[in-house]
């Protein structure tokens, strides 16, 4: 009422001022290029394409269904479907993206492409150092630059990646069981009952 609030506040800032010289744990900031805070698992910056195995071109999960391209709010994804097909993780022949470009300068990191992808092929990266000195070509990332291995996905989002892997394994097991059942049915036509569908 009589201005004692101002004095109280000034005492508080003075305490912070003096304290920041005395105790280092008061300092909340990080001296960025030299020291870095531990990466945050829930962080999301920019999408990348996941591939299985060692060869990025063979293992790419994307089947060029173009759902993400249609759903992208700022329309920063450009996909061209391949003419031929390659087998996906269950062995089924699928299209693959002949061209997959994302414009970093347009992307708004909304994660909608990740939400809509039915093939777990596009995920959010945590790498934020995307600056480049080439403002035309350097900001348009093609599929080679976007492709990152599944191990990398595990390293940045361990919980999420483990969950995705079990789901994919379940699907693969289901598909394998179906395929073996079909093969068995073909080998012995009068088989009365096929094995239960739920694998894994």
């Amino acid at each position, binding site marked *: *009422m*009589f*201005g004692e609030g*101002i004095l109280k*506040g*000034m005492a*508080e*800032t*003075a305490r*912070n*001022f003096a*304290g*920041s*010289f005395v105790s280092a744990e*008061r*300092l*909340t*900031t990080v*001296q960025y290029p030299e020291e870095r805070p531990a990466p945050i698992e829930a962080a999301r910056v920019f999408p990348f394409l996941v591939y299985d195995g060692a060869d990025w071109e063979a293992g790419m999960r994307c089947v060029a269904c173009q759902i993400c391209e249609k759903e992208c709010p700022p329309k920063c994804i450009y996909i061209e479907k391949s003419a031929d097909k390659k087998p996906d993780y269950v062995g089924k022949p699928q299209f693959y993206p002949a061209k997959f470009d994302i414009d970093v300068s347009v992307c708004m990191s909304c994660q909608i492409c990740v939400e809509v992808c039915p093939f777990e092929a596009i995920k959010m990266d945590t790498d934020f150092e995307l600056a480049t000195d080439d403002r035309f070509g350097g900001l348009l990332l093609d599929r080679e630059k976007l492709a990152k291995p599944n191990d990398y996905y595990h390293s940045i989002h361990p919980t999420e990646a483990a969950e995705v892997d079990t789901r994919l394994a379940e699907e693969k097991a289901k598909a394998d069981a179906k395929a073996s059942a079909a093969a068995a049915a073909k080998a012995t036509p009068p088989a009365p009952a096929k094995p239960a569908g739920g694998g894994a």
Partner: protein
Amino acid sequence: MFANLDQIFVLLEHWVVGFLPAFLQPAALIVLGVIGIIVAFPSLFAITVLLERKGLGRMQNRIGPNRVGPFGILQPVADGIKSLTKEDIVPLRADAVVHFLAPVYLVAVVFMGYAVLPVGRNMTLVNLDAGLLFYFAMGASTELSVFMAGWASRNKYSLLGAMRAIAQMISYEVPLLLSSVAVVMITGSLSLNKIVEAQNQYSYGLPHWYIFTPWGLAGFLMYATAATAETNRSPFDLPEGESELVAGYFTEYSGFKFAEFFLGEYVGMLSISGLGTTLFLGGWSAPLSVLSWVPSWIWFFAKVMMSMCVFIWMRGTLPRLRQDQLMNFAWKFVLPYTLLILMDTALWRFMGDGWERWLVCSAILLVAYILMARTGMHRKHFGPRRYRYAD
């Protein structure tokens, strides 16, 4: 030796001027003085900006700039180079001439105020008899520059910022002037040199600064409040409130023009601190008679930098006021209280030298302060707000 050190700049100036023919000497003395001011205060501005950035950082538990040079002390240089090399953008629909003139005018007017400030013993550029009047005339002209900038930019944020600035600066100009009138009443002179001389006396080794009297202390507090508002500093920085007006009246300025506004603002702060020092803190006089051997200009600059540190400290502490709070504070509290200080000063002047005047004058000011605070806060509710539409 110390007497020479005290007068070193004056002696240096006369030594340099001595090389010129006699008819050029008066003009050369003035030019050298102007150069001194133009060199000294912008360098203080650079130091202040660095202090502010480091100090505010520390108050927010950050380190502050620490990359350019050792401990970041070359940061002002980097800032300067950056603002000089930036593109100067003038909006298409802006009034180009006025847009250009506004920052130039601001800097020119702010530097004019230094002409009458006594920076040290015998170190006043122009010893005007009505120095205080001249200072306030120059200080009030900054409002014109602010409005020029806001109007010429043709931008709604600029115009709103300028309108706020005009309302605020005119409102606080009144208490600023009235609180200095108290000093004039006691000294009996508008000359800033005479005001410093009147305070440069000691009894029992303690100085006769006006801040050490009841009316002087109250007057100084009112002066400091009004000066903060006058220079658009936090918590009275509504004209340039970043959160709602981008940058207020200089939204549309970039490059060196922006730097000029920045310079004008800080040099204005330095100058108004200098005037406050002169009026209430004894100008260049030493705080203790045993310290009188220290050069007078050191005391002046030390006091100015101390007030700048308080400015920075307040900025780090206080949140911005709302426009109506600002106006209520000016017209309902600061102005009536300054008028009361004037009457109190008159009482002090005519009550003689006894101890009674200390008691009576302090009691009047204290009781008035408590009463005004109580009535001002009457039926005001504080705490979290409830919005009916949000329930």
